[in-house]
């Protein structure tokens, strides 16, 4: 067994949390080499080398990899694939974009969102918005998988693997990056935060969503949202939690004005403690909440903020 793990790089920095969680899963399969790609990613490669259990870091510093576009990234990974039995990445939007392309180029099936490693060819993954867990065995010569990071603990820091520079693969030059629209924030990242406070349609407006943000800041939490809240323009798309948004499993998840549709539960039901604040005592969210408060959020949330 030999695993190639695609490191998650954003703006030249390693996303340590997601990479380290995928590394934990990858180490269950075999020795791990991490691939870091993108001009100026030297720092990311150096950080990856410190993750515990990494054997080697490959660094492809060509500028064609800067925006993690699917076609050049897939070409690069395929050019390296000969040396590995498994190609693994955290199930981020970048990896979900790239790895199925890699799998098809290698004529193998991709295993998306793996939540459990049974052995080197058998894996668990959620289907039907997490309402069922499927155990599948792959008969392909190479396994290509993305890892659901919320189910793995991050590997520790404490290694010093060698970093090897590698050349670029031919760029298919089919796509060009135009712009990123990202809002920077001092809050913790949604997928790695210990506490997440989420608001739903019940919050009612973008202005009132500040109430959710205030509570989050009081708790040092990340802010999440239901799809309805995002669709209504109360919150940006990258805050969406659920089947088609982000999957989170913090110590504490506070759902405010969220009904608890299965598609939302898919993204948060593995949280350790769930609190729901909703004025409808029949709301399905109460069926998964450890602590439910039936109340109007416009009185409960300010009270909570003042008393914490």
């Amino acid at each position, binding site marked *: 067994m030999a695993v190639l793990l695609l490191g998650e790089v954003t703006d030249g920095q390693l996303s340590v949390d997601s990479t380290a969680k995928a590394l934990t899963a990858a180490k269950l399969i075999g020795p791990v080499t991490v691939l870091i790609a993108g001009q100026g990613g030297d720092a990311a490669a150096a950080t990856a080398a410190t993750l515990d259990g990494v054997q080697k870091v490959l660094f492809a510093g060509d500028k064609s990899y800067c925006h993690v576009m699917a076609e050049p990234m897939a070409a690069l990974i395929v050019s390296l694939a000969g040396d590995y039995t498994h190609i693994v990445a955290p199930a981020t939007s970048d990896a979900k974009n790239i*790895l199925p392309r890699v799998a*098809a180029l290698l004529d193998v099936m991709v295993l998306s969102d793996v939540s459990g490693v049974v052995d080197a060819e058998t894996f668990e993954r959620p289907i039907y918005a997490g309402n069922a867990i499927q155990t599948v065995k792959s008969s392909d010569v190479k396994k290509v998988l993305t890892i659901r990071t919320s189910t793995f603990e991050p590997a520790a820091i404490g290694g010093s693997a060698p970093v090897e520079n590698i050349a670029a693969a031919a760029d298919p030059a089919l796509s060009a990056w135009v712009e990123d629209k990202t809002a920077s924030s001092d809050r913790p990242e949604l997928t790695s935060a210990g506490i997440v406070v989420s608001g739903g349609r019940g919050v009612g407006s973008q202005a009132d969503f500040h109430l959710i943000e205030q509570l989050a800041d009081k708790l040092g939490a990340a802010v999440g949202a239901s799809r309805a809240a995002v669709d209504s323009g109360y919150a940006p798309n990258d805050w969406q939690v659920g089947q088609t948004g982000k999957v989170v499993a913090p110590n504490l998840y506070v759902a405010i004005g969220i009904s608890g549709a299965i598609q939302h539960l898919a993204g948060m039901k593995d949280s350790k403690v769930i609190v729901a604040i909703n004025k409808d005592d029949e709301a399905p969210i109460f069926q998964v909440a450890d602590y439910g408060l039936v109340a109007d959020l416009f009185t409960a949330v300010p009270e909570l903020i003042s008393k914490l």
Partner: protein
Amino acid sequence: MKVLVPVKRVIDYNVKVRVKADGSGVDLANVKMSMNPFDEIAVEQAIRLKEAGKAEEVIVVSIGVKQSQETLRTALAMGADRAILIEATDNVQTDIEPLAVAKLLKAVVDAEQPGLVLCGKQAIDNDMNATGQMLSALLGWSQATFASELDIEGADALVTREVDSGMQTIRVKMPAVVTVDLRLNEPRYASLPNIMKAKKKPLEEKTPADYGVDVTPRLTVVKTTEPAGRKAGVKVASVDELIAKLKDEAGVL
């Protein structure tokens, strides 16, 4: 330009999924089935491109059981021009894997020569999020996944994508495969006259053998189980009680 839209027949998103007690899968007998919600959005987008004069014909394709005809008729009633059904199994429990679907779609693309393929971002049954990317790879085309805005500008498509950090805009060369996210548009409902008209629109029936594609799965399902359930906890009477419980009982504050 022709636009090709693959549409999948899946369990309706409102249905509560039941895992079979023997671990052999999810119960799909007598369950309401619908078009994958993402694919409705792809169909809608294709029709809008046609209405805007940017596409001449919208072709919908479905791969699976014969009953997928209903899904195709829904797409035709929304406004697609013609349909292709590739009957790849007669067992409603059998899911055709994205790699096999992508190979069949490639064969359809080779025959029909569309300028754009609009897929859903993910099928809500297997949650794979793979077919569009795989098809794009097999064709050697450009890809733009998770689209929440799409503009055709001459030989390029300008696509805004929903990514983990926010939004990203990219320019891809046509022909391209674009996978659509839920915020791209609001799909229309088919009117009764259009539902009647759809019954007369062409629906071609094919099999994987017609395209020389092997759909043997690469993944064997060992078992399907229910996830560890979560029990409802307690209702607290006040904010004070909530804070006390979180501090003393749960120890998370």
